[in-house]
């Protein structure tokens, strides 16, 4: 009994340490976004203060409004998600189902692209985009985002498609359905959960992306992750506004995370049980 109790206390202790470490930046951002610039810099830090929405008003409706940047982020993330899913669903189905020459190799390259360090390919990407004049354009950023979101989405979806028994499709053929109709009416409805998870992951990856965005964006197309740094300058850092933008940028992530929590956990494990999911 005491050993059991000790284990529970130890577990709770360790969980609390991790929770504090992870929650700290979020709590810090939320608190500071509600302070005035003076309160932010007060030392020792004020835990009790009169909260104000001034920072939010400034970043949303002030001279340096980040509304256009939020819009850019939305266009980029939604665009990336739509194009990715349109291509990933049929590709994952093909990898899971059809037998074709080079299938194994194709499966390997899908994964291999995931292993490249992004910093290593950012300069070539920049040069390519500059040569075709797509720097600081939506299509340019979405195209580059596809290069990592697409393999990821395919890899995730394949394991869902593989879970569907062959006989289900054969039954549909014998019932008179074409291959496309089978995919649409029989297969896709059964991998809805997997598709939802993939959409969430792809959207969040695009929404949170910073490294490529900072290099490939410009004054026209500047997602919020990059725009945040408007508030960090050589002379001063506007901490309250920076915190307010951070909270705004986190909002869709948190909402999606809560809504899709159940599916996401399943999505993270689905590959695990099946040993990577690819044969």
């Amino acid at each position: 009994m005491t050993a059991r109790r000790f284990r529970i206390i130890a577990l709770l202790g360790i969980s609390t340490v991790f929770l504090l470490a992870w929650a700290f930046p979020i709590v810090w951002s939320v608190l500071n976004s509600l302070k005035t610039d003076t309160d932010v810099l007060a030392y020792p830090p004020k835990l009790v203060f009169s909260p104000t929405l001034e920072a939010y008003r400034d970043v949303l409706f002030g001279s340096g409004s980040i509304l256009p940047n939020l819009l850019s982020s939305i266009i980029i993330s939604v665009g990336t998600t739509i194009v990715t899913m349109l291509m990933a669903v049929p590709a994952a189905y093909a990898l899971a189902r059809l037998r074709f020459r080079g299938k194994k190799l194709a499966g390997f390259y899908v994964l291999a692209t995931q292993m490249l360090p992004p910093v290593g390919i950012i300069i070539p990407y920049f040069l390519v985009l500059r040569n075709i004049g797509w720097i600081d354009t939506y299509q340019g950023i979405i195209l580059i985002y596809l290069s990592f979101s697409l393999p990821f989405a395919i890899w995730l979806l394949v394991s869902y498609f593989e879970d569907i028994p062959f006989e289900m499709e054969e039954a549909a053929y014998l019932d008179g359905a074409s291959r496309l109709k089978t995919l649409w009416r029989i297969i896709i409805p059964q991998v809805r959960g997997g598709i939802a998870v993939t959409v969430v992951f792809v959207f969040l990856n695009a929404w949170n992306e910073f490294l490529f965005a900072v290099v490939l964006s410009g004054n026209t197309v500047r997602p919020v992750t990059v725009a945040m740094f408007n508030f960090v300058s050589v002379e001063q850092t506007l901490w309250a506004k920076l915190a307010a933008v951070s909270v705004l940028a986190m909002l869709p992530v948190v909402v999606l995370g809560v809504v899709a929590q159940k599916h996401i956990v399943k999505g993270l494990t689905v590959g695990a049980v099946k040993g990577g999911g690819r044969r």
Partner: protein
Amino acid sequence: MSGQGQVSFRNIVKMHGEFAALKGVTFDIKPGEFFALLGPSGSGKSTTLRILAGLDAPTDGRVLIDDKDVTSTDARDRDIAMVFQSYALYPHMTVAENIAFPLEMAKLPKAEIAPAVKDAARKVKIDHLLDRKPGQLSGGQQQRCALARAIVRRARLFLLDEPLSNLDAKLRLETRAELKKLQRSLGVTAVYVTHDQEEAMTLADRMAVFMSGEIQQVGTPAEVFARPNSIDIAGFIGNPPMNLVPARYVDGDVIIAGHRLKTTTTTAGERDVVAGLRPGALRMTENGLGGRVDLIEDLGDTAVLDLDCAGTMIRVRVADGNIPGEGDMISITARPQDIHLFDPATRMRL
């Protein structure tokens, strides 16, 4: 929509790499027949069904349905309905939507679909479950739903791949009887794959017995039971299985464990044979083939005796009230027409 449902397999070969799953299979199925493909697992019966359905392509040979070559016709253009072993119900659709699916694919008007679905569901007694999802059904109900989906379209051919194997023993017997009645009332040609000889014997009008990629015998259950073509079929059909004992053939007689029995064969000469004796065809007698009762399995109305005849084990089925004790010495005999002779080298009937 419904055609005749006559099937011909012409020398069908199916290779999986070097392995021959089917080594030249030829048979015919008559319209309206209940035809069983019987054999142990890996004998090629399921491959045959899949080739008939169009789900697999044969390596060589022709498949004809109603005298039309369909070897390279798409599965969905063959007008065939199939019940899968796993039922393959669409889990995201209700029972009604599952049954309606083949009709929708055939682009039947909506007004005709609803009554057809009801009718098919009523035939398999699941018309009260139409709004459920497959996951909310018991195994037996799922099986009926799969049957309904297959019969709703009135396809010319009705394929069943071990449809009863996932049901418990009692339900299996009930469904077996209903299946037969259903097929009769629809008058549709049914092709039924099973490894259970009892299922094949009770359901089929005729059956093809598969052994390692070949058909060894085609006939009515009674024919196959009465005159098995080979040692393998003899040992496969019937329960308890036929006794297959090494023996010596001498001028019309067969010598088993030192005892001489008359056969229907009259050719002169002497050779080694395998003698086949059905447990139920053996009778106790005076001065017959003697043996000691090793074990008694009492089945209630009959009993099966394991008889040790000078080292050769022979099983005998005897009627209740006539059962000797364990360790007793008894002697048995068989009528000449009940003794099957096989060639030990070719394993075929002599």
